[in-house]
């Protein structure tokens, strides 16, 4: 069922690429319309699956990725519609397509662990997924900032110069995305800690809950991510790390998130696997 949104995202990605190269407003509107269609179809698919198994749309990894893709697409659409800048689509859409492949090829929804049947779980997961979607957006903004910066600094105004928004706009958008992402990451982590300690107290004989520690790879990476983005927020505010350094930091941060979470979730069995 997740294949249909994948098709839509892939089509939108193609049209965004054409728009980026040729810059015809008509093509740009078509791209946005396709993405809007993709999000609607995706909403429907997620809704159907949730009704089918009657648990949260992120209770298994493929479904969590699917929800992440949906949130990222929504956040991107929001930015595009509020700033009227379409150039970032060509960078975001490939991420959406690549990630959406995971739920598209995996089996349908499976019943989830009864342990996860809690409102805490919703807050925990939704906050974290939204935080990572914001970081993805910030990462792409950072990447485009660096590209644009390079062309202006090198005095060679080429391909990207005429297509990307101004450095100032990219920097402000990046700052917002990082701040929003960091806030939700913090919220998600706090809720996770509170929830885990409550669950530990409620079920003292569940071995998985007792094994929670900072040494767990997944938790370790989360702490690392939180540290990087906390630094990004603090450095911008008090050390004047704006512009290119902030851009690099957010691109790097998202690369770490992407490269660590996917392998850990697929190949490493941790105490935090559900």
């Amino acid at each position: 069922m997740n294949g249909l949104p994948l098709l839509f995202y892939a089509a939108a990605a193609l049209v965004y690429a054409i728009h980026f190269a040729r810059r015809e407003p008509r093509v740009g509107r078509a791209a946005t319309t396709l993405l809007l269609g993709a999000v609607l179809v995706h909403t429907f698919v997620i809704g159907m699956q949730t009704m089918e198994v009657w648990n949260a749309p992120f209770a298994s990894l493929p479904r969590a990725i699917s929800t992440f893709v949906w949130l990222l697409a929504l956040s991107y659409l929001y930015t595009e519609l509020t700033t009227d800048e379409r150039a970032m689509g060509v960078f975001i859409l490939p991420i959406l397509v690549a990630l959406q492949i995971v739920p598209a090829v995996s089996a349908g929804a499976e019943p989830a662990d009864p342990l996860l049947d809690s409102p805490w779980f919703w807050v925990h997961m939704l906050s974290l997924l939204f935080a990572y979607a914001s970081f993805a957006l910030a990462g792409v903004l950072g990447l485009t900032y660096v590209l644009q910066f390079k062309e202006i600094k090198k005095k060679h105004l080429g391909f990207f110069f005429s297509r990307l928004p101004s450095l100032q706009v990219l920097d402000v958008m990046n700052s917002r995305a990082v701040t929003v992402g960091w806030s939700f990451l913090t919220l998600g982590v706090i809720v996770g800690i509170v929830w885990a300690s409550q669950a530990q107290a409620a079920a003292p004989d569940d071995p998985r809950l007792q094994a929670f520690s900072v040494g767990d790879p997944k938790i370790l990476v989360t702490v690392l991510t939180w540290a990087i983005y906390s630094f990004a927020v603090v450095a911008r505010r008090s050390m004047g790390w704006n512009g290119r350094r902030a851009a690099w930091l957010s691109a790097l941060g998202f690369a770490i998130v992407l490269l660590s979470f996917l392998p850990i979730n697929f190949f490493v069995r941790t105490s935090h696997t559900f």
Partner: protein
Amino acid sequence: MHLFLLGVSHRTAPVDVRERLDFTSRDVGAAAEALCARASTAESVVLSTCNRSELYVVSEDVARARQDLIAFLSEYHGLPTDAFVSHLFEREDSQAVHHLFRVAAGLDSLVVGEPQVLGQVKEAFAVASERRCSGPVLNRLFHSSFAVGKRVRSETALGEGAVSVSFAAVQLARKIFGKLEGRRVLVIGAGEMGKLTAQHLRSQGVGEIVIVGRTQSRADEIARVVDGTSAPWSELMTVLARADIVITATGSSIPILTHAGINSVMHRPRRDPLFIVDIAVPRDVEPSAGDIEQVFLYNVDDLRTVVQENLSRRSAEVQRAEDIVAEEVSRFTAWRRSRGAVPTVVALRERFDAIRRSELKRLDTRLVGLDPDARARVDEVTRLIVEKLLVEPTEQLKALPDEETQVAYTEAVRRLFGLRDGTAGDDIPVGLRPRGSARANDEDP
């Protein structure tokens, strides 16, 4: 009915001839009015910019129109004919369409792709249209030319990239800062170059402009002109610390801003980028300052390179723009051809309807016994038969591919159905009708 264009442009006439034939300095509207009052012209538009004076008219007789237009130019500008006649160029029909579309697209401009000309074309048409000098042909022609200009602007990069040094600087500033509102500008050097650049930036809506010069009185003077303030030379570094855009244009032989000096002002928390344009020769800013994080340093040669790159990128887009022009020209000529078939189509319809009515009249005595309702139905049915018979020929006549075929077909139709010229009232070409009736179908029919 022919479309005819006569005029001078920067390609055919030197500036002193263009100046003397210029309409913009006087009342363009009056000129358009005087032109369309002439007997040979049914419709007219006067397009006059600093690079061209062009008269677009619709006329039955091109040779007469040519004479009339030359006489008009001579009378209107008070010039002997031989002072300008050798510089005139002329185009007819689809050639004239092609020319106007190229002009609107910016392809015929001195600086290819410049955007102002489209506005001037629109203005010229608005003036003529206001005075009821344009009719169905020129209305359609000029509206099509606006569409061409718009398409070229949005589908090609013909108008992109600054092609003058000062525009290149402003464009760069926009790419760094986004909107320039509220940005602080520091101009070092109270010379003419500094003043011009400051004026340019002022017109782009920057915030505060501070002039720092060695001669305080001249700095004050420029500050007044550009609506800015001036500061004494000793406060240069203080002003620099708050500036976003710096223009240096002094005659100094040694650098005024050093790497160390700029570095010291950049090391402040939450410092926005600093864009320095060094238009002085010899340079006012140490080149190594460009290596400082968040400092963008451009000198005159850098800006010239940018302009050069933009120009070559524009010329790479020329072919795509020409393709759009060619496409729109053929669309326009197809429209004109379909209009060329209109008199024949109308005559054909009149003829068929005349036959229908005479047959009904002939049968009148036999139909008299029918009740009014049935009679109305007979009338209706016969009318529908005629309509249906004519649908296909009408469409075919309007869609003929070229002029020659059209003449052959219309001739054949006229012969086959015995149509004489003037069988229909509408056969009179639109342009020759009294003014009021031509206005009735001002817009596309």
